[in-house]
């Protein structure tokens, strides 16, 4: 039960972090970062998504099988985006 009780603290910590990151992403968009704007926004979003997945979705405590499946989804998404963009970015 102590682990369960600890979780409420970690939930609140994650929530606070998410709010800070939300502020950060809005703040970053107010600055003119040029070509860095998209990578910065995506990096912040990835950290937020990671926090939600790891803590709220219990991925941290999940079996390696379930972690593997979560990674597989991202990996296949990556295949699709990268190979397609490899065509689009090199079209003459």
């Amino acid at each position: 039960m102590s682990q369960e009780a600890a979780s409420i603290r970690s939930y609140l910590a994650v929530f606070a972090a998410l709010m800070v990151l939300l502020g950060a992403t809005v703040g970053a968009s107010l600055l003119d970062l040029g070509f860095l704007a998209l990578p910065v926004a995506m990096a912040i979003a990835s950290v937020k998504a990671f926090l939600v997945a790891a803590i709220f979705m219990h991925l941290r405590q999940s079996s390696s099988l379930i972690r593997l499946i979560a990674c597989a989804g991202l990996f296949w998404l990556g295949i699709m985006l990268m190979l397609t963009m490899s065509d689009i970015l090199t079209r003459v």
Partner: protein
Amino acid sequence: MNVSTQPLPVVTEPRHAPPNYLNDGYSVRSWLLTLDHKRIAILYMISITLFFFIGGAAAVLFRVHLLTPTGALFDPGTYNKLFTIHGVVMVFFFLIPSIPAVMGNFLVPLMIGAKDLAFPRLNLASWYVYMAGGTLTGYAAIAGGIDTGWTFYTPYSTMFSNTNVIAAATGVFITGFSSILTGLNFIATIHKMRAPGLTWFRLPLFIWAMYATSVIMVLGTPVLAMTVSLLGIERIFHVGIFDPALGGDPLLFQHLFWFYSHPAVYIMILPSMGVVSEIIPCFARKRPFGYKFIAMASVAIAMLGFFVWGHHMFVSGQSMYGGVVFSFLSFFVAIPSAVKVFNWTATLHKGSISLQTPMLYALGFIGLFTFGGLTGLFLACLGVDIHVTGTYFIVAHFHYIMVGGAVMGYLGAIHFWWPKMTGRVYSEFWGRISAAIIFVGFNLTFFPQFILGYLGMPRRYYAYPPEFQVLNVMSTAGASILGLGFLLPLIYLLWSLKYGKRAGPNYWKATGLEWTTQSPPETENFETTPEVVSEPYAYEFMELGNAD
């Protein structure tokens, strides 16, 4: 596989079959609301057989049309609708669900010693979803037809076709979810519901193949769903997504479409490979050579299959760099396929081979798949693909894979597990005759198409220059033989249901948990959960089949 359950006594023609999944209720309701994976498999079998003959009838019609250079039967519009409905029905409503939804549904729980799939209600839902999609596509075929080809290429499909694209695309969208649900169910079942002692490397190779197939279904099909949704949105709202006139990129559609539809080829062929990996050890009475390599090759094909879709687009206007990358990656998927073929052949070495009907299909599969696979090298190879893509060479190649591969595998599976599924034995004589007819008819239909393709005859032509006529006539002659070959099993298999002799629990004296149940299996599959204590395919310890 040695199993700690007691061997069942040989059943000799009892008056009434013992309780089993078939006589467990006769009402319509007991079938339409069943949660039993075996009954759902039968529902699927009936439905896909219906779709197979619809698609096949369309094929026979347009093959007859192509007897003369100007076209013998139809106006262009009808011809275009016929080949489209042939493609859509065969790909989405026959080949993709064929082995997974029929044989996989029936066999996965039996082979791993489970009582059912992990999610029986989802399983039943998947059949209803499939039927809903099929009905809608059937409606599209009747109400206005559809003439885009099964590939739905934009902007033709979104802006120019006057046919019922929306209904057909919706049908494909819906039926995709049946595929997703089946794949999800199999993955969860294979991970979580294996019998005690049934470790990963004790699994039958068919299970490995189903697992690999399920991965593709789960990860690829959602992309198809989104793709046809976007197609529908563009067609309805006329807002640019794919149409260049509206600022879109038609190649984006092709990327999205082939991201699913190339791996979909492996949804069709991997299960057949699994079937062949079961049949060959049984009829050669020998453990499969290189079990782990065959198993891992299935997984490798499922993975690598997602990296190669761009080889459908070498002349599409894709960048040269993109073409080179996709060609390079495409060759890697050839390797695991080659490994499988070599291992199957090596399994035959020093075996004790009997050429019964399932084995004929399995050996036919290896030959035709090898040839189909090798001709795939021509298409992965950039220089030659320029010339042969979009011609009958492509048509011949993928029919060697899909008919010579997937359909031969499906028929092999039906003939191999028919005694298990129905408890009856079909006529071996007619089985062998029809296997031979199908083999001959198939090659006569599709081999001339390779030559036609290299000569330059484009696919989807309702009329052609007269010098192509000889080869077209040969192909049509083959198609009529092939059509007859496909009708024969329908007849003698149905006949066997009533008049065939009873099969007994293990008709072929095969290994595997499914053969430790009675035939047909009882509703609960196993009285007690079996425990697996040894390696699979221990044929050296099995007695010979009572069919010999």
